[in-house]
């Protein structure tokens, strides 16, 4: 019977190991060149380099860099489903290297509260020029708006009252991006995306309607629970808080991610790694969180947010930590008293959708001229 798989060698080696090995030798001899092998190795070395830079990148990108990480990671990791990896990498690298003004609408859907009420979504607009020039506008319920940016040298924040702070280090994150174990949700997601091919089953979905636009390639990544996949996932947080499903719509002509949505498992559901509950393995083993300077202050309190008042978290939820008492013991500085509103944990979902391409003014990412504070205490 003829071989019907176009990807399989037509040389039809039989199932004798020696025949398969000789077939492999011949294929290698006639198809590989010094250049093609160099290209393979260089691809590996680039990936190694990228992995080495991961912590640095996450630390410096702030959480709003996530879509950039997603674009890069997905472009490099997801596309090899239909064509050779090297060809896809070439085209994806081309896309990733472009510094083009882009805008994304971000929708974060919090989890349903314990009383069954669905908190309203948090909406944001993300403007990106490159990995160093970003600006996000977060629209909270009640009309409160927060604008944060990065201009290549500094991070800045425009407060609701119009004042601004500027810093040459990373500014604190909004509380709702924290996971139950205190790590940063978006850090987890960024790391997760970088390890996408290690931990996820990645398939093309033949559903032209799903991406809402004819011609877009739909990719679905489902977290898989194989021992090897988990072992290959270097980031502990990825294993602890993976998105259980990621849906992507990719323009096959440009290799650009047009829409990306991540779905997280319910709070009380089993984790994909089969574990539940708080960290039981002692303190963080992966070192301080990115931007490690932002741990709790010595008195055990977090301190006021940049806008000067604590206020309820965006979805209004308060109460005990969903995952029980702090597994790593009381905060430095002693007891804290009744818990006053813990991290919210991963949301139900978070989506990024690219809007029509537009160019931003040259000073769009620059810190506001009225910045009133330079390098506030960390």
């Amino acid at each position, binding site marked *: 019977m*003829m071989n019907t*798989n176009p*990807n*399989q*060698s*037509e*040389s*039809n*080696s*039989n*199932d004798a*190991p*020696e*025949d*398969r*090995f*000789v*077939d*492999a*030798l*011949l*294929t*290698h*001899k*006639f*198809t*590989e060149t010094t250049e093609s*092998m160099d290209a*393979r*190795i260089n*691809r*590996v*070395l680039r*990936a*190694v*380099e990228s*992995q*080495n830079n991961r912590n640095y990148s996450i630390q410096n990108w702030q959480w709003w860099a996530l879509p950039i990480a997603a674009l890069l990671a997905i472009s490099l990791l997801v596309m*090899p489903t*239909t*064509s*050779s*990896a*090297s060809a896809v990498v070439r085209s994806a690298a081309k896309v990733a290297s472009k510094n083009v003004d882009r805008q994304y609408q971000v929708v974060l859907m919090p989890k349903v509260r314990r009383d069954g009420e669905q908190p309203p979504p948090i909406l944001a607009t993300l403007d990106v020029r490159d990995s160093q020039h970003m600006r996000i506008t977060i629209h909270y319920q009640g009309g409160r708006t927060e604008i944060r940016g990065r201009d290549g040298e500094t991070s800045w924040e425009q407060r609701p009252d119009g004042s601004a702070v500027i810093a040459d280090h990373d500014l604190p994150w909004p509380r709702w991006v924290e996971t139950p174990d205190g790590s940063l949700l978006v850090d987890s997601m960024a790391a997760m995306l970088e390890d996408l*091919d*290690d931990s996820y*089953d990645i398939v093309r979905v033949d559903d032209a309607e799903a991406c809402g636009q004819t011609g877009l390639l739909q990719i679905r990544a489902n977290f*898989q629970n*194989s021992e*090897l*996949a988990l072992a*290959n996932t*270097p980031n502990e947080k990825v294993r602890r808080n993976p998105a259980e499903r990621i849906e992507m719509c990719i323009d096959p002509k440009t290799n650009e991610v047009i829409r990306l949505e991540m779905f997280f498992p319910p709070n009380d559901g089993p984790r994909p790694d089969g574990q539940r509950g708080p960290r039981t393995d002692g303190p963080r083993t992966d070192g301080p969180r990115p931007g490690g300077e932002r741990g709790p202050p010595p008195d055990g309190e977090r301190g006021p947010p940049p806008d000067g008042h604590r206020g309820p978290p965006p979805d209004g939820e308060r109460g005990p930590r969903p995952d029980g008492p702090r597994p790593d013991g009381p905060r430095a500085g002693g007891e804290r008293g009744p818990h006053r509103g813990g991290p919210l944990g991963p949301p139900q979902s978070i989506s990024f959708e690219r809007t029509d391409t537009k160019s931003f003014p040259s000073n769009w990412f620059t810190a506001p001229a009225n910045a009133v504070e330079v390098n506030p205490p960390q």
Partner: protein
Amino acid sequence: MTNQRAPHQREPSAHEVFEVLARDHADHLLVFLRAVVRDRSMVDDVFQETMMVAWRRLADFDRTRSFGAWLRGIGSRVAMDFAGRRRMIVADPTMLQEIEEHSVAFDGDHAQAFQTRMGTLDDCIERLPTDYSQMIQMVYRAELPLRTIAVNLALTEEAVKKRIQRARALLGECLQRKGVLA
């Protein structure tokens, strides 16, 4: 005489060590993976992933053992994992073991050994009867479809397949005689 490094000599970084090892063993790993996987679209991904796992686990490598064998061990597991995800069967454990035995025989301490053994393959191809060497050229160099070859040689496709298999068997015998195949 001492093994102590001169002050100006720095220790190579893990990255540098890995690059040297990866370059030295890439060809052989790729041959091994092709024998195990065979699906061309999967080989590239399995190769990349094997190298990445090796990089992450480099500290676990026992330097008293063969790096190539260690790399192929990772490659086997990655290939099985990829195949499992795609609900494919690439090779059973016995097949893997036998392919590994051929790989060990073909193995060398560095890249030059691989090229030397590929030179042996060239010698064996040259010694093939014309019909068979012609078949190797059409299938592997020109990558002609079996149907095209069959039409050109006025053979059935089944006959073409048998002739290719016979050519490979002759090559295998030749390589065994020269001590580079188990």
